[in-house]
């Protein structure tokens, strides 16, 4: 790949064409998880535990099975035994064994001829529970008297003497923190808490599964990653992965929550038990909130040492996070790694504990761990800047990590664009907007790694010179468009001449999901590599036709051309001409690329928010919002802006209103959108964006992932703005009006 392309000067990249799936999505034609039917299809419903922690003494399905139209009931007894590790965790979460571990944990499932009959039958399945003591709060779960959720699951890292609910301990750092703190003029230390939140995708999980007695099956499912669905379902059911063909539907949002399985194996198990009839299983919103994968709740201690000029001399954090009743789900490692990743700090210590609690098995949620860490660290940083009367953006600039900085999590940075985001924020007009009474401005920054991951892409030249690209990363937010732009740019054809299809598991090698901000980065990079292969082949075909060496042919603007006057005088042979006669020149022309792409570029962001707080009620209104983030290069700027705006909106929701509320009985109190309060249109202002472009040298067009970073800064930025407006500092989220009003009275 010619590196000078990093400088820009593109024909298509950076333009904003209509997305190829747009027409289907504005006409209602696009098919999502629940939008498909199959002949002879059954409908399923799931019986869920109403208890946070309970032994399952008996399940009696006889009344349900007697109901007309009921075809199958499954319990854990219908699943294979002997699974270990994460496979066992997945099975255990799919359907409870001898113990229900959280409110909403699946206990049984039923398939019937209609959804109404299935729901009626589910109510007729009688489950006898012995209620066990439960714990849902992370700090309470670590206390000596906490009920033990699962004994013996702590891994090798956990120090002796910890409660059995503590299952993992992580520590890392560098430098001499003692000396660092000794060199500081100001040391501050506080504890911060964040509640669990949900990804809140509007499309509930839905699938249509079919599995025969021969162990062969198919599944249609809304997911961020159908190979993950295939592998996980196969493991949970004890079937061969290759025998399960999984086709992804269009996906109605995921944000990390659709990177794993929840109820998919139930549909397959019911199908197998019902003689192989296809089974459709669609979650209700309450099921989504109770029994899919919200993020972790966190309790975090932060200590920072700073000189009077704002130089950070040392910092230490201790984070505790619960990710449900299953080991390995809390993003405490990522949270620690992100905590100080924006800064160049000589001495750092990170410690973290993963803790079990009677809550659903956490899943990834947009930059998992980063929002909590940012809330804790960026809040404290802001407090210290205020105390020292320093400008918070300039303090960030003073301590900013740059190319060559040894990162807080270990390795040294390559080219990164954090400084550029701070400079762009400082230059933005929002920073000069006047503030009125009860108004305040807050800033915060954050980092996310981004991710490469297993990637397999195929590309084929059509007989008319158009190009079809097969990718394995579901399109959540415009990745078909961005991949088509890159392929069209490279081949030198029109954007509309490239069709990008998201294909099923049978059509490509294994692909990781659309997660880790990787679709445009990894599938895009692989698609460009595949295009290179096809271009090389097209050059060979032209060379053979012209009777010259393939090396003497170059690819220019969608056509093979003789490279220089010595190669011979031939008119350019266009891709359409090559495609039209490929049957006679050696057969189909395609390109294919499989890799775990390196060259991942981290993305940094800086947000600036203005809020107004009603002094009488503690209600916060977001007046103005600015997102500045390094995209590397924006392939389709409109969808980059969309990621920035959407991430900010989710972060604003997390900061102000969203939280999992558990009652004393361990039941989720707010499993509906009425009370799980995601931002509505009237809650938000326009969200201003600045796309900083510091190209990632590891990608042919300079792409960094852009999807995740933007969710993290709003949590501290809003807390900082609220503190500026009211003088009250909230160290726990959400900043709900009752909490803020109380803090304002007691400040």
């Amino acid at each position, binding site marked *: 790949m010619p590196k000078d392309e990093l400088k820009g000067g593109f024909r298509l990249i950076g333009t904003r064409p*209509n997305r190829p799936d747009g027409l289907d*999505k504005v*006409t209602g034609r696009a098919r999502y998880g629940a939008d498909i039917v199959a002949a002879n299809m059954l409908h399923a419903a799931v019986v869920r535990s109403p208890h946070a922690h309970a032994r399952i003494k008996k399940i009696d399905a006889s009344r349900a099975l007697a109901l007309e139209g009921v075809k199958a009931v499954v319990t854990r007894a219908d699943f294979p035994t002997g699974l270990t590790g994460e496979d066992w965790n997945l099975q255990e979460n799919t359907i409870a064994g001898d113990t229900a571990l959280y409110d909403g944990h699946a206990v049984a499932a039923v398939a019937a001829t209609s*959804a109404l009959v299935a729901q009626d039958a589910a109510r007729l399945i009688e489950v006898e529970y012995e209620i066990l003591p439960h714990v849902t709060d992370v700090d309470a779960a670590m206390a000596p008297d906490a009920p033990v959720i699962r004994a013996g699951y702590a891994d090798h890292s956990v120090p002796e003497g910890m409660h059995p609910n503590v299952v993992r301990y992580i520590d890392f750092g560098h430098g001499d923190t003692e000396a660092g703190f000794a060199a500081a003029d100001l040391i501050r230390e506080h504890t911060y808490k964040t509640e669990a939140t949900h990804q*809140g995708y509007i499309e509930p999980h839905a699938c249509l599964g079919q599995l025969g007695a021969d162990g062969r099956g198919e599944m249609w499912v809304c997911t961020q990653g159908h190979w993950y669905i295939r592998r996980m379902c196969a493991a949970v059911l004890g079937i061969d992965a290759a025998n399960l063909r999984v086709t992804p539907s269009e996906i*109605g949002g995921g944000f990390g929550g659709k990177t794993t399985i929840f109820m998919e194996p139930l549909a397959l198990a019911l199908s197998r038990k019902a003689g192989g009839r296809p089974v459709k299983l669609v979650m209700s919103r309450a099921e989504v909130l109770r029994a899919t994968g919200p993020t972790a709740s966190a309790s975090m201690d932060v200590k920072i040492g700073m000189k009077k000029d704002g130089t950070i001399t040392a910092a230490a954090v201790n984070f505790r996070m619960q990710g449900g009743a299953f080991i390995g789900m809390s993003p405490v490692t990522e949270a620690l790694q992100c905590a100080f990743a924006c800064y160049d700090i000589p001495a750092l210590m990170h410690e973290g504990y993963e803790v079990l609690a009677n809550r659903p098995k956490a899943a990834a949620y947009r930059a998992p761990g980063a929002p909590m860490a940012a809330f804790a660290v960026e809040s404290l940083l802001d407090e210290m800047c205020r105390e020292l009367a320093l400008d918070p953006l300039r303090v960030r600039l003073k301590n900013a990590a740059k190319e060559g900085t040894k990162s807080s999590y270990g390795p040294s940075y390559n080219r990164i664009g954090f400084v550029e985001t701070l400079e762009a924020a400082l230059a933005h007009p929002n920073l000069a907007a006047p503030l009125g009474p009860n108004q305040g401005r807050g800033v915060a920054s954050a980092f996310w790694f981004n991710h490469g991951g297993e990637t397999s892409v195929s590309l084929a030249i059509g007989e008319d010179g158009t190009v079809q690209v097969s990718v394995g990363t579901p399109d959540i937010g415009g990745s078909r468009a961005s991949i088509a732009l890159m392929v069209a740019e490279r081949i030198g054809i029109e954007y509309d001449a490239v069709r990008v299809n998201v294909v099923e598991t049978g059509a490509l090698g294994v692909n990781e999901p659309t997660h880790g901000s990787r679709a445009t980065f990894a599938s895009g990079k692989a698609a460009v590599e595949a295009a290179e292969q096809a271009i090389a082949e097209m050059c060979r075909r032209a060379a053979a036709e012209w009777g010259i060496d393939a090396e003497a042919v170059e690819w220019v603007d969608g056509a093979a051309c003789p490279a220089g006057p010595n190669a011979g005088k031939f008119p350019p042979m266009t891709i359409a001409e090559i495609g039209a006669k490929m049957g006679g020149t050696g057969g189909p022309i395609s390109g294919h690329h499989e890799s775990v792409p390196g060259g991942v570029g981290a993305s940094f962001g800086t947000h600036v928010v203005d809020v107004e707080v009603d002094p009488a009620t503690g209600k916060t209104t977001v007046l103005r919002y600015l997102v500045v983030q390094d995209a590397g290069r924006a392939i389709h700027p409109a969808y980059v802006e969309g990621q920035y705006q959407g991430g900010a909106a989710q972060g604003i929701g997390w900061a102000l209103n969203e939280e999992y509320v558990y009652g004393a009985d361990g039941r989720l109190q707010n499993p509906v959108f009425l009370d799980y309060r995601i931002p509505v249109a009237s809650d938000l202002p*326009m969200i201003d964006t600045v796309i900083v472009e510091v190209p990632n040298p590891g990608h042919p067009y300079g792409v960094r992932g852009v999807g995740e970073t933007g969710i993290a800064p709003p949590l501290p930025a809003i807390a900082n703005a609220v503190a500026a407006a009211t003088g009250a500092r909230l160290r726990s989220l959400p900043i709900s009006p009752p909490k803020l009003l109380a803090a304002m009275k007691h400040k």
Partner: protein
Amino acid sequence: MTKIHVTTTVNGETAEFLTDPRETLLDVLRNQLGLTGSKEGCGTGDCGACSVLVDGVLVSSCLVLGVEAQGKTIETIEGMADPKGDLHPLQRKFIEHAALQCGFCTPGVLVAAKALLAQNPDPTETEIRYWLAGNLCRCTGYDKIVRAVQDAAAEMRGAA
């Protein structure tokens, strides 16, 4: 369970179906009439993904029973483009402004926005935001949705 026969008009065509009285209009549209453009995001009237017009009134079809459709005129997303397939200005502007990411809320937002412009051809940003407050979108932060509605409204005013 006895099913009830219902005759109704959907997107200008007569439709007949048998429905269990517990089924919602959304169930009927999706499962019986094959009109899966209306989505179920919550089933409780909180998300707006199932928005349709019944006799010209914007409603959540998850909060209407299928039997209530008797004799009514229903308009869904599938009827928004003209019969030749030419998109409504709102549909076009949503694509042009990248006002959709995952696209799941989009049919409901479009139906609701169309109802807004029918009674208020020149809505302010605030009016658009409050009218659409019952249409949850988790992807976009609403910015591009509001811009697309404003732009479509301007075009429709100009064309009128």
